[in-house]
């Protein structure tokens, strides 16, 4: 038996109901997992192992996703899939209407066996238009977006310094990058990390 685990076979096994747990897969932690896989996609081309869209149906551990280009996708959540929705979370937190990006491997029937699913994740470049109690009003491409500070989760990185929970140094007019989770029902977001320029 080869010493190196074949990732595609493992995910396919998990997707098909094999007894494979996240602990057993180990290297499914995103940073380590991506390091192990060389990119084989031609620069400029679409990646067949990546899906973008909104969840239109959840059936067991299968997500039916409608891509923004209207293409339909099936995504299989396995025991080894890492799920992010503002923070690492579990499958029961995923809902119909959520947007997502997913990466994994294609099974023979076209289903994507997901390595990682990032639910409602946004990474906005914006200016701070106003600061309120536990929220920021962002100007993003001419659109106003309300960004909520989530106590215990939201953090700020001030010009490359280590992330801290104190967001009080953010000022109106500053340019920021905001990594967070979108609320499909209100179009507002929760803040995971704010990167603030000097």
């Amino acid at each position, binding site marked *: 038996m080869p010493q190196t685990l074949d990732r595609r076979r493992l995910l396919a096994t998990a997707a098909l109901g094999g007894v494979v747990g996240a602990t057993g897969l180990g290297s499914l932690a*995103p*940073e*380590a997992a*991506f*390091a192990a*896989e*060389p*990119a084989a*996609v*031609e*620069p*400029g*081309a*679409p*990646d067949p192992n*990546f*899906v*973008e*869209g*909104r969840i239109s149906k959840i059936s067991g551990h299968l997500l039916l996703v409608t*891509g*923004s*280009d209207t293409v339909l996708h099936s995504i299989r959540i396995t025991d080894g899939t890492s799920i*992010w929705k503002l923070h*690492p979370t579990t499958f029961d937190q995923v809902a119909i209407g959520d*947007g997502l*990006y997913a*990466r994994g491997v294609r099974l023979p029937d076209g289903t994507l066996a997901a390595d*990682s699913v*990032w639910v*409602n*994740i*946004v*990474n*906005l*470049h914006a200016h701070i238009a106003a600061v309120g109690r536990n929220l920021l009003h962002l100007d*993003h*491409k*001419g*659109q106003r*977006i309300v960004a909520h500070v989530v106590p215990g989760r939201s953090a700020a*990185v001030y*010009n*490359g310094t280590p992330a801290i929970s104190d967001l009080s140094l953010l000022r109106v007019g500053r*340019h920021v*990058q905001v*990594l967070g989770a*979108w609320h*499909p029902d209100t*179009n507002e*977001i929760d803040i*995971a*990390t704010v*990167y603030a*320029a*000097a």
Partner: protein
Amino acid sequence: MAAIRGEVSWFCCGTAWGPCGTAGGGACGTCRSGNYQHAWPNTSDACYAITHPDTCGLSMSRRTCGFRHYTTNLCNGSRVGTTIADCGPQTDLFCGERTCCGSACGSNRIIDLTPAAFSAIGSLSVGLRPCSVDTV
């Protein structure tokens, strides 16, 4: 071009959900979140006038739509090849910013990848990584 070292982030483009829905096809008109593409801060005079990497002391070559770059995530060594599809990042707004993984560091934002490309070399939940960028 010798490899340059800096920071890489990600951005969405093309048809999309949520706040990304207003992103459009980027400066080249071809940008799609699911494609291996990137934004580069010197795609034209108009682009350079916005991004101004020179104010951070960077000399970045003029490259136009479709040009290939290869980005290496210095946290794990993984690498992805992408083509230019947009102008960005706005380097001058984050002059001097520094991101590290242990002793591997990068300063100043030099490239933004699409979600498909960024997620091939790192997790989208980490918005910023030190990187090196080259052309081969």
